């Protein structure tokens, strides 16, 4: 088992494309770290650099006590699970599991013991003599895991290992992955574009954008205290509603204003976040989590009110997503554009809503909202997010109650933030 230290690593492809830019990260021994970000953010490149499959243009990578920049993949004592599993089609499951050990001249008996152990852990014992083509997707995925496990490496590297499974299987495999990590306690670096996977699996989650590390923190802290608009928009599902707004302080009190709405903010909140102070009378970008809405009749007077016309309702059983239109132009900050790369091709601008913002609110399943209703929503104004309209950085981040710690209680890097 080993600690992994990335120090200012860079990756520049021939032609000048910079895939990773000055990324520094310390991963503790036994920690489960997830790299997450939209496609093209460099997360897989980082993983492949740790594996030694991709050359490092600058910086150093250390695993345990050794600098690994120039060490061949096979000598790094790592195992990797690939998105498409990369099982050797011409070999049986047993041969697939044993291949890495045989290449290392592990004694036959030892190979056999480890293969059988891994097969038992993963429930593959009865499939050992089959070829990968005769297995289901979930079984192939487990063989891929098994191939990593038998190696008993210092580090597991996983590149979107669940994304080829159907939704249901993905959830159950996610649980087994977490359980497996509890059991083996091997340092793991896990790449995904799925923020739900990131939130549920990671001791800590690293959000990347354009090859630059945005924030590293525990899942809850990422959700509660995003450092910028990008992280705020990326983490959370449905994603955060954002709008250009104005912070005001007048006779009536302190409030944030956008479109036809004025949401009062208690002085209490302002007091707890003194960084907001200079922004009164100025433009900000306001972020509202869908989960901070509720139907007005179900909440007390401390929540602000927002009358809206529901556009569409999506009943999910346990909750209802209310989709409504706010008469304010969509935020065109760079952070938002980066969240949806396809928007550049004109895919996101639905002409139906041109010049307006589409918002989502999550309300209780027992609410009686119907599409087209005029309803009143309650907004929990204690949880408003404010971002600087120029830099996109969070304003007046609530102070974390205690030092950020990973779930396992191991020490974590203390100053996350944009590199």
């Amino acid at each position, binding site marked *: 088992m080993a600690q992994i230290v990335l120090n200012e690593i860079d990756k520049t492809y021939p032609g000048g494309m910079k895939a990773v830019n000055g990324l520094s990260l310390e991963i503790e021994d036994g920690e489960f770290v997830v790299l997450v970000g939209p496609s093209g953010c460099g997360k897989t490149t980082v993983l*492949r650099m740790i*594996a*030694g*499959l991709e050359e490092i243009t600058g910086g150093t990578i250390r695993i345990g006590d050794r600098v690994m920049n120039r060490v*061949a*993949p*096979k000598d790094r004592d*790592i*195992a*990797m699970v*690939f*998105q*498409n*599993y*990369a*099982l*050797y*089609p*011409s070999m049986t499951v047993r041969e697939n599991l044993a*291949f*890495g050990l045989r*290449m*290392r001249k592990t004694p036959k008996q030892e190979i056999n013991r480890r293969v059988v152990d891994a097969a038992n852990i993963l429930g593959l014992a009865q499939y050992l003599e089959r*070829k*990968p*083509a005769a297995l289901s*997707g979930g079984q*192939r995925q487990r063989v891929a895991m098994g*191939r990593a496990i038998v*190696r008993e490496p210092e580090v597991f590297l996983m590149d*979107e290992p669940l*994304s*080829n499974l*159907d*939704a249901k299987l*993905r959830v159950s495999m996610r649980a087994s992955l977490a359980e497996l990590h509890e059991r083996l306690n091997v340092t793991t670096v896990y790449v995904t574009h*799925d923020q739900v996977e990131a939130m549920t699996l990671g001791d800590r989650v690293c959000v990347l954008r354009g090859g630059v590390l945005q924030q590293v923190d525990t899942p809850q802290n990422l959700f509660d205290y995003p450092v910028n608009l990008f992280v705020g928009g990326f983490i959370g599902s449905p994603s955060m509603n954002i709008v250009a707004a104005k912070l005001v302080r007048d006779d009536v009190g302190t409030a944030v204003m956008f479109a036809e709405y004025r949401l009062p903010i208690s002085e209490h909140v302002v007091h707890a976040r003194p960084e907001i102070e200079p922004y009164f009378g100025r433009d900000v970008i306001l972020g509202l989590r869908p989960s901070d809405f509720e139907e007005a009749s179900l909440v007390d007077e401390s929540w602000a009110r927002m009358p809206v016309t529901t556009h569409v309702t999506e009943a999910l059983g346990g909750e209802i997503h209310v989709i409504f239109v706010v008469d304010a132009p969509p935020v065109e900050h760079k952070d938002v554009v980066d969240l949806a790369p396809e928007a550049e091709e004109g895919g996101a601008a639905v002409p139906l809503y041109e010049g307006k913002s589409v918002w989502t609110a999550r309300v209780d399943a027992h609410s009686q909202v119907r599409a087209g209703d005029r309803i009143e929503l309650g907004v929990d104004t204690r949880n408003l997010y404010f971002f600087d309209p120029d830099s996109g950085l969070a304003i007046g981040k609530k102070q974390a109650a205690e030092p950020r710690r990973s779930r396992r209680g191991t020490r974590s890097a203390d100053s996350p933030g944009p590199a």
Partner: protein
Amino acid sequence: MTQTGRTVDEVAVAPDDVTSVEPRTSHSWWRLTVLGIGALVFVFPFYYMIIGSLQKNQNTSLSGVVPQPGNITLRNYGEINAALNLGKTLINSGVFTGGVLLATVVFGVLAGYALAQLRFRGRGLLFVSMLLLLMVPFQLLIIPLYVLIVRYYGLGDSYLGMIAPFAINSTAVFIFRQYFLQLPKELFDAARIDGANEFRILTRIALPLVRPALLTAMLLTFIGPWNEYLWPFLITKQQSMQPLAVALANYMNTVQSTVSNPFGTILAGAVVLAVPAVALFLAFQRYFVAPNIGSAVKG
């Protein structure tokens, strides 16, 4: 969730013939008519070749198209054997073809793998040279090759001289490369992490996956030297070194009136020359299909 990456064993390296064909319609009669006429035009010369080779006396009239019971004989095969020594010329053809096949399979696979999967100094140059070689017809180089091989190295009338210019079939190298390129990159990454060296990756992982391509390439390579006429014709003076194609062509040019049915004798030789290639292709025809060929020559 979109299924982005395909898993390895879904990769279509197996020959697949009837992909995306139009559904059977009531209009298939026109297809059958067109194909039937086409097939007749294509097969008739083969049929006629066999009929002609069995004629006791040459019969070029319409009635000669159907076998005449009184006019059938195997004597022409005996005559051509006496004139050409079929055994020896077939061995020559076999050595020529076998040498090319062996060199192509061994060195061509290595080169194709290197071009597809390995990064080394000079790869770009090697690739461009291969493309150039594919474009410049061999026939245009006969003069300098003749000068080099026959005059400088004295390899006229030798197997080595015959094989050398064809030794590694570039089309086959190109096919190998295409197939190695199509294999998922992760497979190679996984094997490298598992600690296999490149030679092992090639033999244990890559080659078993491209077996169909190997066969396609070998079939295409086979017909080159087996059917080649110009080069062995240039460098063999002694009949004992000539492949069948050359010996037969020479015989055609100097038709012996000593035999009773000269054309029948020539056609008997043609049958002997045609049968191995045709038989091989019919036996392995499922490897000689459009997608394989397409991926080989689509540039």
